[in-house]
């Protein structure tokens, strides 16, 4: 047997760093017990930042390693930066919240690190097996995180529900992947791309794509695979919900985009119908189902379903500008969502967390700055100019309309999107109305730590003043999109 060259490790350096670091921190935590949870949290943040620096240093050049299973390019680097940012936020929010609830356990940051590792592997996957393994690593860590407050029924229920449905979706994804492998004869994305471009695809491949898309749609919580989202978002501990809403969503959307554009790029006409349906259904459901919610975490769940719908509009376009739109959308979405969840973490009365929307009543008179920040996030999510959320929607709809010259159905998509965001604006603005015009109830505790306030402040500033200097994000997203959509 010919000796095989040792694979190059440099492209996977961020992942290796995270894996080794997570294991080292795990040992540290095990040997020093739960007293070390704060140290472990801060070291995890440091590790995530370090990984971010390595990602940035790696730059946008396309590098493939591990015999074609792993790819690092501008697209993956962009997504990785967003994911790492989301994870940092989640670790910080969790460290603060868990400590005050007497739940400080060092496994929390470790599990977030491991989940992040899975996400980085997902966005760098260049093979169906690598895709599945990354996804599974991420999901498994998330199931545990959802049930992290094991003594409360809601949290364990959320974990169990997420686990059962997640396992089902993994099955569908695997079924699809095996069908694609069976009919295309390979699991490598590069080979799949060339194979699938030749001639009419076999019906098995189409079936495979349907199952694969169903599995991925579950992971991004798009309609009709969204049922788990509200329950899990509501039941999981708030910092974990914040994590769910931010990092895994970016990773899953990025993975979705890569799978559809790269290996299945030749079959864009086949899968576009699926994406268009999913996007329309998600936008509409996200807009209407959120109206009646009284729990703010549940409301955020429906809101995130809606946002995924908007992001998928860009994917449905299937062009470079569409992908750019998706990336910009996810980047801005991260800031708005992280800020909103940090505010939800501040909602504590008499040292207990409250989650009702009605509890926000009159916030503007007691905590004007907090109310202002939340108002900024809500206006931005509703898509009101000149806030960041308006631009994110603008770019995806523009991409859809550009592409609609060839594919008329995208007009429908864009129109439905605009209408849905009008409906969605209602419930976002309702929160603003409650905060500013309703009679105040009991005020919130002022015990929240500086990190949480810093996260709120930074996100609010970014959301507010994005329009002044959008160029870095736009160019980075454009490079990332160009790396994926070639020619």
């Amino acid at each position: 047997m010919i000796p095989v060259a040792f694979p190059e490790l440099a492209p996977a350096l961020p992942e290796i760093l995270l894996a080794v670091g997570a294991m080292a921190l795990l040992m540290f935590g095990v040997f020093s017990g739960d007293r070390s949870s704060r140290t472990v949290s801060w070291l995890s943040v440091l590790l995530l930042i370090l990984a971010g620096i390595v990602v940035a240093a790696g730059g946008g050049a396309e590098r493939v390693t591990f015999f074609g299973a792993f790819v690092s390019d501008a697209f993956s680097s962009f997504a990785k930066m967003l994911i790492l940012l989301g994870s940092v936020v989640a670790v910080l929010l969790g460290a603060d919240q868990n400590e005050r609830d007497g739940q400080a356990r060092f496994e929390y940051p470790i599990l977030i690190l491991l989940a992040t590792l899975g996400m980085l592997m997902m966005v760098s996957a260049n093979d169906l097996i690598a895709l599945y393994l990354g996804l599974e690593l991420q999901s498994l860590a998330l199931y545990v995180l959802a049930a992290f407050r094991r003594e409360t029924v809601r949290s364990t229920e959320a974990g169990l529900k997420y686990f059962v449905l997640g396992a089902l979706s993994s099955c569908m994804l695997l079924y699809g992947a095996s069908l694609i492998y069976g009919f295309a004869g390979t699991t490598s994305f590069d080979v799949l791309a060339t194979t699938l471009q030749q001639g009419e695809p076999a019906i098995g491949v189409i079936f495979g794509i349907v199952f694969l898309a169903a599995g991925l749609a579950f992971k991004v919580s798009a309609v009709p695979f969204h049922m788990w989202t509200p329950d899990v978002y509501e039941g999981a501990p708030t910092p974990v919900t914040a994590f769910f809403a931010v990092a895994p969503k970016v990773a899953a959307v990025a993975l979705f985009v890569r799978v559809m554009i790269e290996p299945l790029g030749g079959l864009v006409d086949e899968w576009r119908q699926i994406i268009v349906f999913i996007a329309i259904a998600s936008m509409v459901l996200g807009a209407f189902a959120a109206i009646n919610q009284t729990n703010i975490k549940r409301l955020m769940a429906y809101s995130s379903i809606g946002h995924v719908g908007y992001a998928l509009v860009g994917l449905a376009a299937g062009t470079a500008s569409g992908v750019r739109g998706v990336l910009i959308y996810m980047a801005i979405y991260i800031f708005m969502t992280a800020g909103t969840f940090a505010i939800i973490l501040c909602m504590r009365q008499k040292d207990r967390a409250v989650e009702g929307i009605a509890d926000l009543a009159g916030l503007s008179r007691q905590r004007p700055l907090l109310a202002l920040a939340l108002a900024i996030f809500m206006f931005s999510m509703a898509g009101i100019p000149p806030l960041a959320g308006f631009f994110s929607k603008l770019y995806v709809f523009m991409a859809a309309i550009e592409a609609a010259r060839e594919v008329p159905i995208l007009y429908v998509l864009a129109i439905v999107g605009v209408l849905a965001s009008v409906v969605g604006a209602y419930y976002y603005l309702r929160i603003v109305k409650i905060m500013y015009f309703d009679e105040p109830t009991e005020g919130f505790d002022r015990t929240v730590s500086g990190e949480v306030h810093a996260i709120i402040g930074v996100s609010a500033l970014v959301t507010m003043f994005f329009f002044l200097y959008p160029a870095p994000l736009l160019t980075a997203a454009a490079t990332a999109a160009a790396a994926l959509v070639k020619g």
Partner: protein
Amino acid sequence: MIVQTLAFYLFAGLAVASAFMVIAARNPVHSVLFLILAFVNAAGLFVLLGAEFLAMMLVVVYVGAVAVLFLFVVMMLDINFAELRQGVLQYLPVGGLIGLVLLVELLLVVGTWVAAPGIVASDPTPAPGDLSNTEALGRLLFTKYVYFFQASGMILLVAMVGAIVLTLRSREGVRRQSIARQNARTRADTLEIRKVQSGTGG
């Protein structure tokens, strides 16, 4: 050749029959025992394919370890299975429908495979000539598939950490044995010899 063929039908037949019994058996413990029988027969089929390493691993891992825990859990669970079965009829229509749809899809897919328009021949890794299959497997696993191997390792690590996070409860006030302390104890630490004067009551 005829012996191999007979052995194949023996193993395959037993595997299918015991797989059926897994779902048909009334007693859940019997179900698990049939499951184990199915595993063993599958291992036999692996041997016939010349994959002796996989066969042994199937027995060691699935039969020797996983199924034991399965059996443990099933024996310990105090579930009224007659009650569980009543739910079956209620969900049968929906479940049956989904099963039927999947079956039709599978048939369609297999059907097109037979009809075969536009199917690309798969390109599996060529079988190495002079290596035993344990060695061939090892070489492939630790070179071409090393990334997947490591990734699977991380997944198992997460599973382990998760199981501990969700179930380990450290109870307060438990007195634990410390062997080092026991061994370090000397007679001087624990024994005190007193001369007791007779008649003083102490």
